[in-house]
């Protein structure tokens, strides 16, 4: 009866002992072991099943993956005194869990240290560059459409020496130099968002509006100018067409007149007197009508025989 009475508690005890002396490490974890609160051995990175002393040793798990860090948006003045919101993000990982555990205890502690470090370095970096350097990455020349040529900030010459990506790299470099003392490796820092503070944004919008208005005005006036030019062209082309038509017509007529004159001269030149006689007869005949008075002398050739035929 006695063995049977103790069987159940013994089994339970054995299971507890077994569970307390093994632990698993996931693919995404790393672990340190403490014995009565004191760290024993190094970090355990290898995923799988592991053994430890039961009850006296505790397992502290830390993530092995890249962890998130989302910096609070900060209002920072740039070197050229423009106030902007700078929102960075970073990725970090725990490279030395033991030191991490000792220095900041857990992720919350790590995040708060990173806040200080990354925000501080961001502030330093942003404050030592002009806004243009922080926004742009290089000296790429903007493409400008015909409508906008000559107007607008798009044509302002950029002179970017460092550039956005490089500034982020500077922040990373400086911050990453501090973090190893917390067992943290900072793997990347990047500008997530950069935006104007409200008052500056208002001014920027006003500038954008006035710039657009200038573009619109110029466009309209260009249209009117071009239209006037076309109207002028129209006048020119019309006058050119009609006058060149007139010129050709006159030349044609002149040439024909000359040719006709030559023909007449050659023909009538045979006997100018006869031509004069015939033409006179024709003209006399043509000018006579019923309104005309015809006064003839009896001396004329026609009436030679009127008075007497006796000759």
């Amino acid at each position, binding site marked *: 009866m006695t063995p049977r009475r103790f069987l159940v508690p013994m089994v339970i005890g054995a299971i507890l002992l077994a569970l307390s002396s093994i632990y698993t490490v996931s693919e995404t974890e790393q672990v340190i072991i403490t014995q009565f609160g004191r760290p024993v051995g190094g970090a355990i990175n290898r995923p799988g*099943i592991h053994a430890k002393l039961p009850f006296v040793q505790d397992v502290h798990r830390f993530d092995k993956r890249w962890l998130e860090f989302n910096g609070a948006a900060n209002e920072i003045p740039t070197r050229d005194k423009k106030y902007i919101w700078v929102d960075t993000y970073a990725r970090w990982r725990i490279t030395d869990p033991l030191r991490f555990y000792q220095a900041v205890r857990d992720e919350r502690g790590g995040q708060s240290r990173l806040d200080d470090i990354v925000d501080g370095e961001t502030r330093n970096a942003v404050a030592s560059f002009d806004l*243009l350097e922080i926004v742009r990455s290089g000296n790429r020349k903007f493409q400008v459409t015909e409508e906008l040529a000559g107007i607008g900030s798009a044509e302002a010459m950029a002179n970017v020496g460092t550039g956005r990506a490089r500034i982020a790299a500077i922040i990373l470099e400086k911050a990453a130099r501090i973090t190893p003392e917390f067992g943290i490796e900072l793997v990347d820092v990047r500008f997530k968002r950069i935006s104007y503070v409200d008052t500056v944004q208002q001014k920027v919008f006003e500038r954008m509006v006035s710039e657009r208005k200038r573009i619109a005005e110029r466009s309209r006036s260009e249209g009117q100018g071009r239209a006037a030019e076309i109207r002028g062209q129209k006048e020119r082309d019309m006058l050119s067409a009609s006058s060149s038509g007139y010129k050709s017509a006159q030349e044609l007529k002149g040439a024909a007149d000359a040719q006709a004159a030559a023909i*007449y001269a050659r023909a009538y030149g045979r006997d100018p007197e006869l031509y004069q006689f015939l033409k006179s007869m024709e003209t006399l005949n043509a000018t*006579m009508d019923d309104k005309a008075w015809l006064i003839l002398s*009896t001396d004329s050739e026609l009436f030679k025989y009127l008075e007497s035929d006796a000759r």
Partner: protein
Amino acid sequence: MRGPVDVGPPGQFRVPPVTPAQARTIRTVAAIIGVLAVLLSSYYQVEPDEVGVVQRFGAYARTTEPGPHLKFPFIEGVTKVPVQRQLKMEFGFRTVLAGQTTEYSASPEVRAEAVMLTGDLNVAVVEWIVQYRIRDARSFLFHIRDVEETFRFMSEASMRQVVGDHSVDEVITIGREAIALLAKDELQRLCNLYGIGIEVQQLVLQDVNPPDPVKPAFNEVNQAIQEKERAINDAWADYNKSVPRAKGEAEQAIRSAEGYALERVNNAEGDAHRFEAFHDEYRKAPGVTRKRIYLETMGTLIPKAGRRLILDEKARGILPLLQLGPTAEVKP
């Protein structure tokens, strides 16, 4: 039928007696549940667009392809990763209800994703989507915590970096395609750098606008450009209405002059030939021909005249008046 359970006096707890038959039933049920649990825990199925990543005691063991599979119960766990599925992330807006009439919403936080500074220090509102695929399930699961947020931030940072190197006009109009391509490349570069196991398939710009307070001014520019084009078109229309016509009229004057020239020369030649022909005959008998023509002309000429007076030099004193026609009437 048994009555209510007798819990006995306070401080004592009495389990109702279990008969052997009941005990057997309980054991059978427990055994079935146990077997079922083992079976359910060893069987899993991977859908066609997924792979299964199996971990034993937390350590990566293997990746399994679509189909039914077995694993060790309890000590192995499986995570299914949709590696074939095209995933989509939206920036600056959210699709609330996809369908024939897709609904979008945008809270202030979501709107803030789209507001960015352009390279000419202006502001643009850029909405875009990223379509991506999980290329490496293992890195996707084990390399980065909160992949979704990380990927979202990477995408925002890439887009802002690219937009930061373009002018507001490029962002809104001519540079859209180039920007989408550059942002995609930058995002893929970051993915490789982070080892996030994602392949960016497409990055597509959606609505790209100037900020709301500036929109009317931008529209005004468009309107002004339209006006400009209209003014030019109107002027050309006017030109086209008048100039071809003037050219036609000039052409008409030339043709007409050509007609005149032909007529003039033909007439001259006709007249000349007529004269020459006449002259040939005339030369044979000039005197009589001349007289004949004179008298013929007079013969047709005199009857045509309205009034005829024939004066005799010798009868000057009496002023003879001859009325030869019926209408002849001398007014005082």
